[in-house]
């Protein structure tokens, strides 16, 4: 026998069951085969680059500890970035990297290329599953595409639990192949930046410009290896150690960066396209602690990175999640970063000295310190969904690594601070 009308009685029954259990309301969601995280990030450097980023990740639960992870990142960058050339007491004119058109930089200003804009789309996919008792594995791939850049990669990892699952050892391998095809081709190492105004006509300029370019595109291959150890110290403390090795082979020069050649008076004689080595081996050690401290969560980590470009860096990062009332938490963050200069970093080249094998004036590989000061506010909503807001101040402070600035350069700002603010809204459901 059936009900005369197939009625929805669950709402009335739910009310009756809550009444019996003395509960006022019930959280709704019960089963969740997929979990989603979404975020929008806005990044803005003072007078320089602005970026907007949208992130969507999904984790599908296929039962038996099998998961499919999908990720999509779309970001758009716009604004001006430092070219590496030095400031001058007078107006300077620069040719755009494409060779078409030029822009002027005011006296005393750090030269910025304001044509910097790009949109990037990145897709990630990975599959995780147990392999045998105490063993887990994952395999995945990524694709990232920008206007002039394409990165493709595959990765895999293996983790083994032992010591009553209190210890996990893991090993990961990832391979990526990147190709770059900048507008206007790739400049020969140390090719001069030509100015249209120095040529009689467009044809003469174009043929000279073409001579500074020797190929349209180039590639880079990277192998990353990671060895990790995660240890449960006690039920309130988790510790992790990682060692990672990254070996890159290929084009690592930034095709948009310049190095200024100055005379004894500090006046720019010429701007050359930078030239970096085509091999780089990086090592990094990472130590992380996640501690549950009477209702609060502390996440403290330290990373030491060194490479054969002689760049060494230290990163210390502390996040502390504190409950704020019953529904909200606040998570202040402080991150400190310090790096030494790569061996071929120079703020400028001197006219009377021989050209080195490699040189770059990109402040990002020079000596610098940086810090991030931020806070995240989050709340758990009904059904286990989470909403959070994060705001952070990020400052990069390039430093002089003992170089004496000749002539006019002594009075100019060669190591300009870069200050940025970041705002992020995340929603997990």
């Amino acid at each position, binding site marked *: 026998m059936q009900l005369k009308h197939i009625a929805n009685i669950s709402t009335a029954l739910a009310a009756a069951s809550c009444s*019996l259990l003395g509960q006022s309301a019930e959280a709704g*969601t*019960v*089963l969740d085969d997929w979990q989603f995280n979404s975020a929008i990030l806005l990044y803005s450097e003072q007078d320089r680059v602005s970026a907007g980023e949208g992130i969507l990740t999904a984790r599908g639960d296929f039962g038996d500890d099998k998961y499919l992870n999908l990720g999509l990142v779309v970001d758009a960058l716009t604004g001006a970035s430092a070219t590496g050339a030095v400031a001058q007491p007078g107006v300077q004119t620069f040719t755009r990297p494409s060779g078409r058109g030029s822009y002027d930089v005011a006296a005393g200003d750090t030269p910025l290329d304001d044509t910097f804009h790009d949109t990037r789309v990145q897709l990630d996919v990975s599959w995780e599953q147990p392999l045998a008792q105490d063993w887990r594995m994952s395999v995945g791939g990524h694709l990232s595409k920008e206007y002039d850049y394409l990165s493709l990669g595959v990765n895999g990892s293996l983790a083994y639990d032992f010591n009553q699952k209190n210890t996990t050892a893991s090993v990961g391998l990832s391979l990526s192949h990147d190709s770059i095809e900048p507008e206007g081709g790739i400049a020969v190492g140390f090719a001069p930046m030509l100015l249209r105004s120095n040529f009689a006509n467009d044809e003469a300029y174009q043929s000279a410009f073409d001579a500074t370019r020797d190929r349209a595109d180039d590639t880079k291959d990277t192998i990353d290896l990671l060895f990790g150890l995660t240890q449960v110290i006690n039920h309130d403390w988790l510790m992790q150690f990682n060692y990672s090795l990254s070996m890159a082979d290929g084009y690592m020069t930034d095709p948009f960066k310049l190095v200024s050649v100055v005379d004894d008076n500090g006046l720019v004689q010429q701007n050359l396209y930078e030239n970096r080595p085509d091999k780089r081996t990086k090592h990094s050690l990472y130590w992380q602690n996640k501690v549950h401290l009477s209702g609060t969560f502390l996440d403290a980590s330290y990373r030491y990175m060194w490479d054969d470009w002689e760049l060494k860096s230290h990163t210390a990062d502390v996040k502390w999640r504190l409950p704020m009332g019953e*529904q909200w938490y606040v998570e202040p963050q402080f991150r400190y970063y310090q790096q030494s200069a790569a061996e071929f970093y120079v703020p400028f080249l001197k006219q009377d000295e021989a050209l080195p094998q490699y040189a770059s004036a990109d402040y990002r590989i020079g000596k610098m310190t940086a810090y991030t000061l931020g806070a995240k506010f989050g709340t758990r909503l009904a059904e286990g969904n989470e909403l959070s807001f994060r705001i952070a101040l990020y400052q990069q402070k390039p430093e002089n690594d003992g170089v004496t600035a000749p002539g006019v350069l002594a009075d100019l700002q060669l190591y300009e601070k870069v200050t940025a603010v970041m705002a992020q809204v995340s929603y997990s459901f």
Partner: protein
Amino acid sequence: MAQINLQQGGKCVVGQFRAMASPCEVLLERQDMALCRTLTELAATEAERIEQKYSRYRPDSLLSQLNANAGQWQSIDAETAALLTFANTCYSLSDGMFDISSGILRRAWQFDGSDNIATQPQIDALLPNVGWHKVQFNQRAILMPHGMELDFGGIAKEYAVDKVLQLLVQQFPAAQAPSIVVNFGGDMSCNRPRQDGSLWQIGIENPSLADQAISAVGLSQGALATSGDSRRFVLKDGVRYSHILNPKTGWPVIDAPRSVTVAAPNCLLAGMLATTALLQGAGAERFLTAQGLQYWLIT
């Protein structure tokens, strides 16, 4: 108190005991054996209390006393009144199909896998004692006709799961309880998602494959309850009579799924919907679809 057994799993600790004729367990996300023992002891004590009060198999239970004294007004406590109120709602919402006075029909039916079906005279002798509408009750007292018997099967275990979970969560300061699953023989409830974001993997039993779980479903919060049992049926002339009896005819519901599992915010609701679905016989799936909750059905 029941004997307690503790085990450490990969991403949880488990406390086990037996109550209500079922294996019972408390799963705790936090890797804390001492806490798990404390919670499991509380759970076992609460389960024992509810079983002692509402078991029809225990002659000294409150329910057995109520049944023994049918025919006169008897006073009841608040908890019993609340359970009867819920049973009353279930009776009206299911159009009289879910009836806590129908248990007496089991005297005519032995669901032992044999071909012994009841005779109509046997059933006719019992039917006058079935019918919740004949019971009068208020928040303080109950009067059921002489010869009637109540049975909280289909409510008591699910109620125990929800009450135990409630009790365990109350052991922690507000909103600070870890993720806990209370599972009494496949009827289970979970208070909140796990801290690490992963899901509790719950196997749904396939009656035709004995103890093999057919599929693991990920539970983050809320309850699952299953009704149906492959081992309790009568097979006669090719017709499989389920152990679910229609209280109006006294005959088993035919063409019912073997087992129905429903996901709902609490175990009582999940259990009630699963049982009511079985009572729809071949219409079980249509009924479940109309409820707008997730379900699994084994036919």
